[in-house]
């Protein structure tokens, strides 16, 4: 079906909008309208017509990938959870959406909290889980309120609690508010935080599937990932897989921001060209300036230069050119962006958010920030560019969790792809670009 259509034809069609197709219906966040719009149909289908193994099979077939950032195949992850265990099994939902540029989970919680709950309940039924923890980012005050209300409604309707839909399946949901740390979005740091401890990532193995929350087998999934489960149950795994490309099944939400005419959230099929997202959905570059660079998948993903804009936005295609699809946050930068200052903004974030547990990230991120700050103050030294690369290399791969890599990757890509800008800034004590966007550091 797809091959005969151009991407711009698709753009006009609503049929690939599966997650957000009903989201504009008034009152969709409330349980009544959600029911009326066909909500909880997938849950009834799962409970009445499907076996747990059948559900897992559909999810595997769907090629759904983890949409928190890592892109791990969801169905495969589910099978890591032991079937036979004398311990409790938990679902811990990661709502610590903190990757700069990303605003999709927040949108889902505000607009379709019941879709989220439905996804959770089906997942727990499939994996014989009876307690689901939801770890919400501390700053998400309003989404938390929406979620609290939705959970209350679901309990009232008997969709949560004992004997759901009379099928003998029990599920309790516990909402937990984080205290505002980027690191708690790392799954094991989130589990530590959930246990009431300081949010420090754990050494792996063991992985959470075997030893997670309170030392029990735990599935950790992202909000958006779980929101796709009802869709997969309704349309079948195969059809969902076909909406995407290769091993990246279905659609996903792209958080489009930066110098585009129409920034916002777009549900688009995986594999769509980056150019289409920016120029067709985003309406092109603001003021019709030239495109300079794109961060394709949240601040941790290596930056792309303008000539890489024809990459397809699926996990494999983007990995082939050395970046990551990550959280689907596309940050667009135009020709008046100073790459040195842009990198400083990113690295300030990582230096601030490094948890401080392991040496390379704790000391390295702070060092990177200091060097970049010095360059921007006009006190750069000749060796700074090489030193930035060297420090990033020394952090890469040597840390407990991916935060170290997340800080190192932008440094390596920015300095490598835009080295002339760094050298100019260091040599001339100022940015190469006339009339550049002013640097605003909060």
């Amino acid at each position, binding site marked *: 079906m797809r091959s005969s259509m151009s991407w711009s034809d698709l753009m006009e069609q609503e049929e690939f909008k599966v997650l957000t197709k009903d989201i504009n219906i008034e009152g969709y966040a409330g349980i009544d309208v959600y029911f009326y719009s066909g909500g909880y149909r997938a849950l009834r289908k799962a409970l009445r017509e499907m076996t747990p193994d059948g559900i897992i099979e559909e999810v595997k077939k769907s090629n759904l990938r983890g949409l928190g950032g890592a892109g791990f195949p969801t169905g495969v992850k589910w099978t890591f959870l032991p079937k036979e265990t004398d311990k409790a099994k938990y679902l811990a939902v990661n709502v610590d959406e903190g990757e700069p540029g990303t605003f999709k989970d927040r949108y889902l919680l505000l607009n379709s909290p019941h879709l989220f709950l439905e996804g959770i309940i089906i997942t727990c039924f499939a994996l014989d889980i009876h307690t689901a923890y939801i770890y919400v980012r501390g700053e998400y005050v309003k989404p938390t309120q929406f979620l609290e209300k939705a959970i209350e409604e679901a309990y009232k309707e008997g969709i949560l609690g004992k004997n759901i839909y009379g099928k003998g399946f029990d599920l309790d949901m516990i909402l937990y508010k984080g205290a505002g740390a980027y690191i708690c979005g790392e799954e094991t740091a989130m589990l530590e935080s959930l246990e009431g401890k300081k949010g420090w990532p754990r050494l792996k193995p063991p992985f959470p599937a075997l030893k997670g929350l309170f030392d029990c087998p735990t599935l950790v999934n992202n909000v958006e990932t779980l929101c796709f489960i009802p869709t997969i149950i309704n349309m079948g795994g195969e059809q969902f897989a076909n909406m995407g490309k290769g091993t990246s099944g279905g659609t996903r939400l792209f958080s489009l921001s930066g110098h585009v005419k129409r920034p916002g959230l777009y549900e688009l099929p995986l594999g769509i060209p980056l150019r289409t997202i920016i120029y067709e959905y985003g309406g092109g570059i603001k003021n019709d300036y030239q495109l300079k660079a794109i961060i394709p998948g949240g601040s941790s993903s290596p930056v792309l230069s303008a000539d890489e804009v024809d990459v397809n936005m699926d996990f494999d295609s983007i990995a082939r050119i050395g970046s990551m699809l990550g959280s689907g946050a596309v940050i667009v930068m135009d020709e008046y962006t100073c790459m040195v200052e842009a990198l400083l903004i990113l690295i300030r974030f990582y230096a601030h958010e490094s948890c*401080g547990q*392991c*040496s390379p990230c*704790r000391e*390295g991120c702070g060092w990177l920030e200091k060097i970049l700050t010095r360059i921007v103050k006009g006190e750069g030294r000749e060796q700074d560019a090489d*030193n930035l690369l060297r420090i990033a290399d020394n952090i890469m791969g*040597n840390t407990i969790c991916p935060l170290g890599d997340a800080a190192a990757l932008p440094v390596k890509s920015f300095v490598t792809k835009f080295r002339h800008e760094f050298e100019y800034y260091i040599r001339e004590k100022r940015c190469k670009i006339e009339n550049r966007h002013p640097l605003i550091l909060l």
Partner: protein
Amino acid sequence: MHTLTIDGKEIRVKENTTILEAAKQAGIEIPHYCYHPGLSIAGNCRICLVEIEGVPKLQISCYTLVSDGIKVHTQSERVRKARQAVLEFLLINHPLDCPVCDQAGECYLQIYYMKYGQYNSAFLEDKVKKHKAIPIGPTIMLDSERCILCGRCVRFCDEISKTSELGIFNRGDRSEIFLSPGQELNNRYSGNVADICPVGALTDRDFRFKCRVWYLKETPSICPGCSMGCNISIHYNLDRAYKASGKRVMRLKPRFNEEVNKWWLCDEGRYGYKFIDENRIERPYIQKQGAREPISWDDIMMEAAKILKSYSPESIGVIASPQCTNEDNFVLKRLFSEYLGISKIDYRVPSKLAQSGDDFLIRADKNPNSTGCKELGLLPSIAGLNVENMLKEVEEKKIRVLYLINHDLVKHMGKEAVNRALDSLDFLIVQGSNVNETTEFADLLLPAATYAEKNGTFINESKRVQKINRAFEPLGESLPDWKIFLKLAEEMGIALEYRNEEEIFADIAKEFELFEGLSYSFVGDEGVNLI
């Protein structure tokens, strides 16, 4: 068992061994900071990264378990580069205050820097400022700028002392070790955090600035503070005594013994060394017309012999010491029991002091060798005649001479009770190392050496015989207790001769079945469990 190769060397180790421990068994040292064999694995310092063939990323050897057939490299170019990088990270914000840092000389930043240092600083920025010289408890000083945040101290307080006073606060390069709100580091094991701190962040307030560590000599010994028998090293300095007003012992450190104290030592034991150089009886004294006068060893021995000879064995009581070694007590027993026929001998002094133990290293019996005294039979041969009854007999004038070794009766039994009893005595002979309230009563005062000044053995509460070693000469004219007994025997014309402690131990081994086959070399530095 697993077979693996480390740096080309094939080794076999038990399952569930980490690569770091496997390497250690093969004699290959992998640098580490956060790893401590007595604590849980933190894996945060990252300096123990090693290369495993076929594994893309370097792995931390403190956490990664061995598996069959793996080939590990600890000296490859990649590993050395990673080590150098970690060391660079740890040092960028570390102050360059080695010249005034008390840890210098036993600092693992210095030690690893010599091997893996970069030597050419690439850091041009300002260092992060943190708290310096904060006394966080009675024993420990914190310097946060020197801290590499390995977290050993935090884990010690969580897992070993189970008191959880410390935590790591803040994030990123602003992270700092500090006390939890409202706490101070004041537990019975607090001194250990200075031992396990690999850098100069936590230093021992008692030891700080007393002596540069490279001037220290060390002698393996046993803590005399209780019946646990923790293994220790006596750290002392004899060459720069003018720096410490003549004091020789600078500090005690725990010495690893898997069977006894592992890596640890309680504060009571750690700081209980001061009596070695303080308040000592440095020469023999005699009480004459209410005044104490110094006297020579020859003369005091003559006096003592005269007294012991002029009384019948029934009118002499001997209170032996569980602070003394088996060697001391064996000679004591031979002299007083075998040769002089005295039967009123005991080592157990009841104490009014509230002395507490715990379920870890601290025992309520504050003597290191009570078991030894019992096994050697330093008990009255008359049923029921313990020290309390001995004092009663003193009051009843049945005992006229009391030979008291290394006890402070006043401290343990109260001034009034002791006064009443001792007033009725004809002679009180006191042998001991330190002046105390009881020595005031002595007619003859014989200066004895401390445990740091002699060889010998103690037997701890779980019947482990362990060796103490002489670190230095006895202070002043003092002598090891066994030598005093031999002097006395000689004076009394008794043929009792030993050249050294080892000979005495050989005799003990001959006489007591429990010690059969034992010798000093067999007991070694780790000790032996008696069955």
